[in-house]
């Protein structure tokens, strides 16, 4: 009998040992849920929101966004000041003498050159390498390196041994380094002065300097993991340098723990130049990927902030918050009229768990693509190649019904691709009228009549004989409900046959990339504060132009705007380009603008900002009343407005 108990005893020992060996971390000053797990902390390779959020905690660029201003104004960060030349093409950055790496070494101008070279090199395959291509010579350099690598891979002399091959790869790399210094307009004049020359004036360049891909990395650390591949001649970056305790960073915090799918822990970086300003000195980021578990973690108090709430019942949460506002309607209307931002309003109303959910307009748009190619992949002619057909279909979508009945988070109906009012100095075009602009059924029929006339004009007299319209979407996140709604609109108001094509996400993406669709759902978030972040994806041949839209007129307007030095004229050109997109050519139909849902108690936390650009700078967060930090409440500038506007308005400023 005793022998039979041995396996059981083995299990007891195993469990006992692992419990004894695994010590939990002490509680942090601030704990937040990051939506999803960080995929990479390699600055030049990242593109996900959750990665960028942590990057802004660990690293620092030349400039930063002041997230509590309406314009997200660039302010000095690692650079204490900068000079911009008359023609707007040369930037001279002066680094802060107190800027240091987390190992105490001084931050050098050359560290930026090294990081930016990584981003530009095709070897790195950076998602955002495109953002660097208006630096003088960057495109030429990247093209040259790509060609040289292709040539290196193709040509291998018959008698070339391994050693000779390795030498050839080293020679090519030496040539690459020399060439970069020669042709690319990024130069460290001395350890504290960085000079950047641009191909053309880029009014949003400082905004880009605040973006994580432009942050510096510590060259001795990164070089250690770079390997020159002798077969292909490429620099291959191996994984490992972003792991603690190896990672060296230059921002407000340093990484002390990163356990895969478990948690991340950050401690204040005592070498950061502004370390005294921090409101929290340690941050824990537990890995909670399941949306419902995130909300539970918030409700039970184990996290104080949720960056991205995606549970299906967030709509009901939003409705309960509106109910809370109705209970305090007079105070709410008064605070709104005084012009407080939406978080400050919550802070001034009584504390209530229903008010802990926050819906913030985001810098992104949900839209439908039309395939603009003359023929479909199976060889049939594509009816959507005709802009009149696209316009007719765009008019016959009830966007309001989708925003209000399907989404229900108070998302604004979209007339334009770029969220109106999100960019200072940019005037959005009016956009095309659609079914939602009519107040009754007669009005909707009138709009539909105009749309059917367009179809007739395009040669489709009998809508029932129109080729069956296929709506492509992936099955997640309620896209099916939106597709059904769109399909019903088109069947009812245009009388065309419609078929829904629901695909698994990978297949969906492949179909989009291969232009294997007629219409499809799509979405886009802006990366930086300029209209081009939305418009460039419609340029002929752009990697994100799934619509295969090509208009020489549109492209020419973007080119003209790129050359234009007068900011107001430049914005007018871009506005005209967007007008072509959303009023005349309609390669896409904007449906609604996204909202971001976050959770926190405004009475207990200061630092989140309700700006539509949704870049939280979490190093500004302060737990109110914890005795640490200044406990100062940060707010957006006041925007007083009349009582009429506020009573009609929703929660968003």
């Amino acid at each position, binding site marked *: 009998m005793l022998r039979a108990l041995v396996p059981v005893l083995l299990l007891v020992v195993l469990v006992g040992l692992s419990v004894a060996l695994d010590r939990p971390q002490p509680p942090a000053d601030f704990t937040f849920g990051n939506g999803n797990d960080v995929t990479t902390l390699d600055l030049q390779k990242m593109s*996900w929101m959750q990665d960028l959020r942590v990057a802004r905690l660990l690293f620092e660029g030349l400039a930063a966004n002041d997230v509590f201003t309406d314009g997200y104004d660039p302010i000095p960060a690692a650079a204490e000041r900068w000079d911009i030349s008359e023609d707007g093409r040369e930037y001279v950055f002066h680094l802060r003498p107190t800027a240091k790496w987390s190992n105490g070494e001084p931050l050098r101008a050359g560290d930026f050159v090294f990081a930016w070279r990584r981003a530009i090199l095709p070897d790195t395959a950076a998602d955002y390498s495109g953002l660097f291509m208006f630096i003088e010579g960057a495109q030429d350099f990247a093209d040259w390196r790509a060609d040289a690598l292709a040539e290196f891979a193709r040509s291998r002399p018959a008698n070339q041994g391994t050693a000779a091959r390795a030498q050839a790869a080293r020679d090519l790399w030496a040539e690459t380094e020399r060439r970069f210094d020669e042709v690319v307009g990024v130069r460290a004049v001395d350890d504290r002065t960085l000079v950047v020359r641009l191909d053309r004036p880029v009014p949003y360049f400082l905004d880009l300097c605040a973006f994580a891909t432009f942050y510096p990395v510590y060259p001795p650390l990164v070089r250690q993991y770079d390997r020159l591949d002798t077969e292909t001649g490429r620099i291959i970056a191996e994984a490992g340098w972003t792991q603690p305790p190896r990672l060296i960073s230059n921002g407000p915090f340093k990484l002390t723990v990163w356990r895969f799918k478990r948690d991340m822990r950050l401690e204040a970086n005592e070498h950061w130049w502004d370390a005294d300003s921090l409101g929290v000195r340690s941050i824990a980021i537990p890995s909670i990927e399941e949306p419902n578990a995130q909300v539970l973690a918030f409700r039970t108090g184990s996290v104080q902030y949720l960056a991205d709430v995606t549970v299906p019942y967030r709509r009901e949460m939003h409705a309960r918050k509106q109910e809370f506002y109705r209970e305090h309607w007079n105070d709410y209307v008064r605070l709104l009229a005084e012009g407080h931002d939406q978080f400050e309003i919550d802070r001034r109303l009584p504390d209530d768990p229903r008010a802990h959910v926050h819906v913030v307009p985001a810098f992104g748009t949900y839209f439908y693509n039309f395939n603009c190619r003359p023929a479909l992949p199976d060889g049939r002619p594509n009816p959507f190649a005709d802009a009149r057909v696209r316009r007719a279909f765009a008019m016959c979508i009830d966007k309001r019904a989708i925003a209000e009945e399907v989404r229900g988070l108070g998302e604004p109906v979209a007339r334009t691709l770029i969220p109106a009012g999100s960019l200072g100095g940019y005037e959005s075009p009016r956009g095309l009228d659609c079914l939602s602009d009519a107040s009754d059924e007669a009005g909707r029929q009138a709009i539909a009549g105009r749309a059917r006339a367009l179809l007739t004009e395009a040669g489709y007299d009998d809508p029932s004989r129109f080729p069956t319209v296929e709506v492509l979407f992936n099955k997640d996140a309620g896209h099916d409900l939106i597709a059904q709604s769109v399909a019903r609109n088109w069947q009812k108001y245009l009388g065309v046959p419609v078929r829904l094509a629901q695909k698994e996400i990978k297949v969906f993406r492949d179909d989009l990339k291969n232009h294997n669709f007629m219409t499809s759902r799509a979405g886009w978030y802006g990366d930086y504060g300029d209209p081009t972040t939305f418009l460039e994806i419609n340029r002929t041949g752009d990697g994100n132009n799934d619509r295969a839209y090509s208009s020489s007129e549109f492209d020419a307007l973007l080119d003209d705007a790129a050359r234009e030095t007068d900011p107001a004229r430049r914005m007018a050109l871009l506005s005209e380009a967007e007008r072509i997109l959303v009023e005349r050519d309609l390669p896409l139909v904007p449906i609604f603008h996204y909202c971001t849902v976050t959770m926190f108690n405004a009475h207990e936390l200061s630092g989140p900002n309700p700006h539509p650009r949704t870049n939280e700078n979490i190093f500004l967060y302060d737990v109110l009343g914890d005795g640490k930090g200044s406990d100062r409440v940060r707010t957006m500038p006041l925007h007083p407005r009349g009582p009429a506007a506020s009573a009609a308005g929703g929660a968003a400023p």
Partner: protein
Amino acid sequence: MIVRRLVQLPLIVGVIYTLTLVLAWKVPGNPLENPEGRKPAPEVVEAMKAQYNLDNFGKFYWSYLDSATGVKWVRESLSGEADRREREAIEAGLIPPGRFIFDLGPSLQYKDYRVNDIVAAALPVSVTLGAAAMLLAVVIGVTAGVVGAARPNSIADLATLAVALVGISLPSFVIGTVLLLVFGVWAAALPVGGWGGPEQMILPAVTLSLPFAAYIARLTRMGMVEHLSSDFVRTARAKGVHELRVLLRHALKNAFLPVLSYLGPATALAMTGSFVVERVFNVPGLGQHFVNAVQNKDLFLIMGVVLVFATMLILFNLAVDVLYRWVDPRIE
């Protein structure tokens, strides 16, 4: 016997490796692409594919074997390449990069991790959770089985049978969610998720253990009922042996053997097949990677997890066979 099984191990793992790679290679989609928007230029995609040998099945097959079997490690150690890199790092005042004998490659989805790091972080969690769950399963299952068999068709027996039926039939996401709501949210007695302290282990371990406990209860009861009516038990009772002693020393000793042979594969399954429980309780174990890696077409991770699991399963079955012979010498 042990030597033969150990010789077979690399062959079996090799076949599993080949089959899995063929299947994984056929999964549609490009693992190097980001899910939402942001597509790199085509030449960049080609470059990345070449970097990971994703452009050529044969090349990938052999290069992966090369590093996963430790051949590459031996080669780099002998050539002095590894020493040189370590020296350089120390001279630069940096921590030298980690090296793995059995290098399972980089993860394509989690770009900052090597598959070894992922397995090293997740496997202890899964092993602990699986072991705790099996422990609970044995205690609950055997107790229920003995109680049921002691008074067949009594209320206690019917109750344990009913509970066993529920334990087997109800999916763990239902059990897990109910436990989570009752103990985590309403009673707020236990944490709702995460991993670290023993208190965080209770709910996931209970959830994971129930189906196994139910099966063990049925196994035990069946064995007990069978042995309680056998000649040696009748003899023991005739000798005047105390009923409790009859139950435990005579009947259970024999009825436990089928449970023991079930423990091997069940433990391996509990340690790796806890995807749903991991998700519900947010436990950072290995099970999630089976599903996520395939969804992301993360070839290196798929292969790494499959190889680790296959090796574990074979070793566990071997261990149980050895134990079984030791516990019951009648078995040849």
